[in-house]
């Protein structure tokens, strides 16, 4: 059974008199431990799909079942609880809180779990070690490089041991060298810790680290399982 199962999911937006359909009756299954990358031109519905899987937006129709829970049926409060326990989110720009240290930033999601302070401390330290920043816990974001900040963002996403981690262009604001380090880190987390990942990216190279690549265009998946095919079918917007 798939860990993530989207069935017949449609999402529409109304802009003035115009109705936009970023996702049009799509189906998607992601198995546990799978690393799926999602590509597509701007406005193809990638971010919308990510938001729906993250439970921060709701579809107009269809169901999204994650680890047996149809998250479209949850109330706003229950959805927040569900996110705290089951979801890790890696942002394009790390979105760290500047007034909190790296440790405190990573600890934030664990405060929502029923854990003792010792358990929390252990989890935070493990997550920081996993991203190679075990010695930077007391640094504030301003004292870290862009790559280190993104690593802290990744540590924050995995610290709760979520069922799924979603990443919204995690290397989008990094230079090439740092981007490759982050790619390697994401790959390691998937392969060594078995973390299920869904990643949106514009970059073929980044997409290639995933075990499965998907291409979205005009609200529908287009067959595409390798980076070269994505580039060919995705058109000029993919670059």
């Amino acid at each position, binding site marked *: 059974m798939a860990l993530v199962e989207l069935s017949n999911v449609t999402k529409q937006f109304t802009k003035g008199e115009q109705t936009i359909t970023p996702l049009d009756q799509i189906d998607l299954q992601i198995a546990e431990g799978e690393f799926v990358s999602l590509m597509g031109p701007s406005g193809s519905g990638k971010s919308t799909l990510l*938001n729906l899987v*993250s439970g*921060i937006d709701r579809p107009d129709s269809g169901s999204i079942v994650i680890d047996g829970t149809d998250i479209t049926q949850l109330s706003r409060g229950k959805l*927040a609880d569900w996110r705290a326990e089951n979801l890790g989110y890696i*942002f394009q720009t790390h979105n760290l809180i500047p007034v*909190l240290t790296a440790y405190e930033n990573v600890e*934030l999601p664990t405060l929502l779990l029923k854990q003792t302070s010792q358990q929390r401390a252990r989890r935070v330290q493990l997550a920081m070690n996993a991203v190679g920043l075990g010695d930077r816990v007391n640094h504030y974001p301003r004292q870290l490089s862009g790559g280190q900040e993104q690593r802290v963002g990744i540590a924050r996403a995995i610290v709760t041991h979520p069922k799924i981690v979603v990443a919204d262009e995690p290397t989008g604001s990094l230079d090439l060298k740092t981007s490759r380090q982050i790619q390697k880190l994401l790959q390691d987390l998937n392969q060594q810790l078995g973390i299920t990942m869904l990643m949106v990216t514009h970059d073929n190279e980044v997409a290639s680290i995933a075990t499965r690549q998907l291409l979205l265009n005009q609200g529908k998946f287009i067959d595409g399982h390798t980076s070269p095919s994505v580039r060919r079918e995705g058109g000029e917007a993919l670059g």
Partner: protein
Amino acid sequence: MLLPWEYGVRNLARRPIHSGLTLLALTTVILLIFVVVGFIRGLECSLTVSGDPNVTLVYSMTSEENIENSAISAQIPDLLSASMSATVKQFGIAHHSPELYLGTRVTMAEHSPGLGLVRGVTQSAPLVRRMVRITEGTWPQSGEVMVGKLAATKLGVPAEVLQIGNQIEMEGKSWKITGRFAAEGSSFESEIWCDLSDLQTATKRQDLSLVAMLLNDRMAASEVGLFCLERKDLELRAIRESEYYQTLQEHYRPVRILSWLIVGLVATAGIFAGLNLMYGALAGRIRELAMLQVLGYKRIAILVSVVQEGLVLASAASLIAGGFAICWVNGLSVRFTMGAFALRIDSLAIFVGCAIGLLLGVLGALPPALKALHASVAINLKAV
């Protein structure tokens, strides 16, 4: 689950100059509130403590409620003493105080004249005016006066001008200050007391303004009232002193209402200061607040955290303003038509000032927080 307390506190340090200026603005607003509430409390307390419920004032029926305009015969005290059984008597001395009370121009050396309140009294006055205590010097003899604690404020001169040994001029005569007195914050403290017969001579008057009588019990006031009603020829009127000052309180009601209105207006200005801070602070943190929601924090938790920020700032402002008010505003004397009184930063004033201060923090933070949390998380995550 709420956000860590440190998050809200440290957020205030993100824009230190802005937070500092807002703290200054809130402190000023709360201090203004303390001053106005201190004024109201001072006025109320001065009038409340001035009225002794066991003392009844007998004065002229034609003067309405202004004792300064009253003129009654000098024989009235003896007549009352002979007719009233309810007057307190000790060692054969009736506890009643014949008094001549007037507002007059008082001139002091090297200072422009001021309008002073002068009370001519006999040595029986302290038997009736039981709150009056001589704090310095001696009881005035002929050609001498003693001045109340706030008399200098009433005259608009520094306290040193009315030091013992100094001379003042009033009613065309020079008077030497021989004593100072306090009266538990009552309106007597803004008066100048001298010998009754001396004042009568100086003013060329033989009459009195009033007789203050200390009665055995509070119900005896009606006996005095009945006497005044029966002796229509004397044209007297009796009123319990506490009721007299209660009437004055009513007289100053518009002033109190206006003062509370000022408290409201100043508080409203403070709310805008708080709003300005929080709108500015949250405008740059929309994406961060959305991120917190993505992590699983509920809107109410984020709202509480933002309100915490406003409250921390407002609490700090309340503490600073409260400390300043207690140390420097409390006891400041203010000149007023009825005399002078001291600003009073009592427990009620502190409660009102701090409560309004904290309210400023909450009301200043709520609208921007609600606005920031109102839009969808997905949209806010893209906010610049």
